[in-house]
């Protein structure tokens, strides 16, 4: 490949050369403002923790995850929790293969809010096309805890969600979470016909067909 790569691309396209396929996984983070969605997303994509401002609209990140037989390119849609964005949030999570419902273990109202999000999701999603995780973040704030681990776990069990407590601050359980999601997605969706689309390095092809790029989010079973 003689072409130069876009300077910002963190991921080389050697994946294309290997027998291992690279599949695109759309993942959305939902939850109240301030629970740490962006902090988790930044952990996922760069394994860093930096100070954040409330997200404006939605922030998009990517991250490659290699499993033994497949590579996933996680396309992470970190939505804004502020109320003014609620009406457009479906634009961002529509067609997601994985959804993280994030709450802050030190703020009960964010746990309540996560359940409201869940209700909204349930209206739209079709079983088998999306894996949903309930994520109690800020686990480092154990002394201020308002939602017990057991409570989170039992809500998850009740509603058929996966559950994990994380700390974006310390990094605790963050990469474990991402890996677990990758495995679940692989089991639940990856095997299905047309469940996940293949990732192509766009540099070569799309320069000449700017309008043809087919956004992948719309091939999913979840309708708008």
């Amino acid at each position, binding site marked *: 490949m003689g072409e*130069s790569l876009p300077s910002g691309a963190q991921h080389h396209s050697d994946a294309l050369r290997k027998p291992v396929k690279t599949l695109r996984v759309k993942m959305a983070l939902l939850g109240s403002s301030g629970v740490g969605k*962006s902090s988790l997303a930044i952990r996922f994509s760069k394994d860093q923790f930096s100070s954040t401002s409330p997200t*404006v609209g939605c922030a998009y990140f990517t991250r490659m995850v290699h499993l033994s037989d497949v590579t996933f390119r996680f396309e992470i849609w970190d939505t804004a929790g502020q*109320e003014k964005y609620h*009406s457009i949030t479906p634009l961002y999570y529509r067609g997601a293969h994985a959804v993280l419902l994030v709450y802050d273990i030190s703020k009960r109202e964010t746990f309540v809010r996560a359940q409201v999000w869940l209700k909204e999701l349930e209206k739209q999603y079709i079983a088998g096309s999306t894996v949903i995780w309930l994520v109690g973040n800020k686990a480092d704030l154990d002394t201020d805890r308002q939602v017990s681990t057991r409570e989170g776990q039992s809500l998850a069990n009740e509603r058929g969600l996966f559950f994990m407590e994380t700390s974006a601050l310390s990094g605790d359980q963050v990469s474990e979470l991402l890996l677990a999601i990758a495995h679940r997605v692989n089991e639940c969706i990856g095997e299905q016909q047309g469940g996940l689309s293949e990732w192509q390095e766009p540099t070569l092809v799309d320069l000449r067909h*700017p*309008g043809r790029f087919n956004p992948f989010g719309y091939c999913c079973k979840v309708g708008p």
Partner: protein
Amino acid sequence: MERANHQEGEAQGVRICDPPSESNPPADTLATSLSLLGNHMFPDPVERLGSTTVSRDDPANSSDVTAEEPSVDAEPPSNQLMKLETEDTETSESQPVVSAQPADRGTEDAAADNDQNDSGEFVVAMLAKAKLEEQGIGVKGRSSPLLEAGTQESPTFTSHRDEDVTADSWRQHRKHVFVLSEAGKPIYSRYGSEEALSSTMGVMMALVSFVQSSDNIIRSVYSEEHTVVFLQKGPLVLVCVSSSRQSEQQLRGELMYVYYQIISMLTQASISRIFEHKKNYDLRRLLAGSEKILDGLLNLVDSDPSFLLAAVHCLPLASSLRDSLSQILQKAITPNLVFSILIAKNQLLTIVQEKTVIEDTRLEPADVHLLLNLIGASSAFQAGEIWTPICLPLFNPDCYFYAYISYLDPPDCTVCLLLLSTDKEAFYAVAECKRKIEEAMETQNSLSLIAKAQSYSVSQVGVSDLRHFMYKPFDVPDNYRQLTQFTSPEMEAPYGSEEEKMRLLDLYRYMHSRIHSTSRPLKLIYHVAERETLLAWVTSKFELYTCFSPLVTKACAITAITKLLRWIKKEEDRLFIRYPPKYSTTPNPSKSSRGGKSDQQDSTDNGFLSLL
């Protein structure tokens, strides 16, 4: 106080009727004009210190004569314009210098206010000082029940600003800005929490609705220390309480920016719909987290003359570099992409626009200001690629664009790319444009070239007495439909400190208000201030504000300005974005014939009503 120093020379506004047309070379015109100054010094207008006025619109122009006659003093009934002028002359006596406000006034205030322990009373007292009752508005008799209307307020969100609104320091802020709903619900306050201020807002709303009930719209209230300006936009009421000595028009313009920034987040249509359904809706729910953006806007309004001039300031750049950047943007396009904007250090590098869009409308400076403020006010854009709805209120107040925002030089985050599309589904296509732009910039080494670009020093002009200037060319056929821009050097010594910067800006604001006075607009002002001499000049081709060292002679000023204009002419390709390039995205059948406007947004999508 500083007043003693301002002799007549200082108020030498001279109206030059029918200025010589453009056929005269600028320098001649100026020389002629200046020579007039010596012979036609206008005596100081009658001193009217201490007079307070209330001006209103009377849309019905009704027979409500008494309400139309607010003057306390012996002046004949004057229209609003004349009152503005009154304010103007007051201003020229106590020069609009910030430093005129400290110690004395502070103690005065403290003495007068020492029995107040509530921000609401502050406003009441302030309004009382403005002798409202005596002006035929008659708030006096009815005030109490109305005042109480706003005092009970359900606690909702706790605001992060915990400034004590009962403290003197709160009162002494130079410029307060409040936003409230027509029902008197607090929406935003620049200082202190809206919650703690609910009674204040109630008072203001009472005032507004009272005046409305008699078919008038309250516009402004003047007292000795403060100007209070009201602006009603749809269901929102914006109030500015300022001791900055700016003109009413300027303060109103600033309130418009605040309104537009709110619109840019929520759209006018949504706000109207929300309040149609629920009159006492608490809009803070939707603005929660955006206070920083409004705070940032107000700080910029105070410190950046772009807002005063309603023009955009671009980063000076070799025209070859700017052209190559524009070409890069022009090549990276996709259907429904309408604006590609490149920003460095919070200043414009270039803007490229879709062809059909520019035929219809052009990008207004105010919309650019709002975008720049949004990006500058939040670090949210520094991580990831942002895809967010955003409304450009002057372009179309009711629709959203979808903005792709990403910095091109992480982790420094100084060069920012902004791509505006009318298609909310276009993220991947637009992100692909960014990658092309990034790649092309890499090939041309653009980032390091941009990094070298910087504002210029006034010393480059090579005129010894010239300390600073602002030059705004007008929209003449020459640069047709171009984004209105201005150019200005860095503020350097003696305007290096924040206080001195502000003092110079205040002088400019004062000159600007004189030039743009609706009652007595001036073409040329030569203003001998205490520590500098200013000259403001407006022609059909440009608006120019210059600041000289205090001892400059008129002759020197003339020569200086001639030189300056020549220098600008020579440098204009570097100082301005010339002939903004356009592109044409592939024809798109879904685009309506009227084109341009983001009319593909279905209105249901940006409605917040589902949440009410």
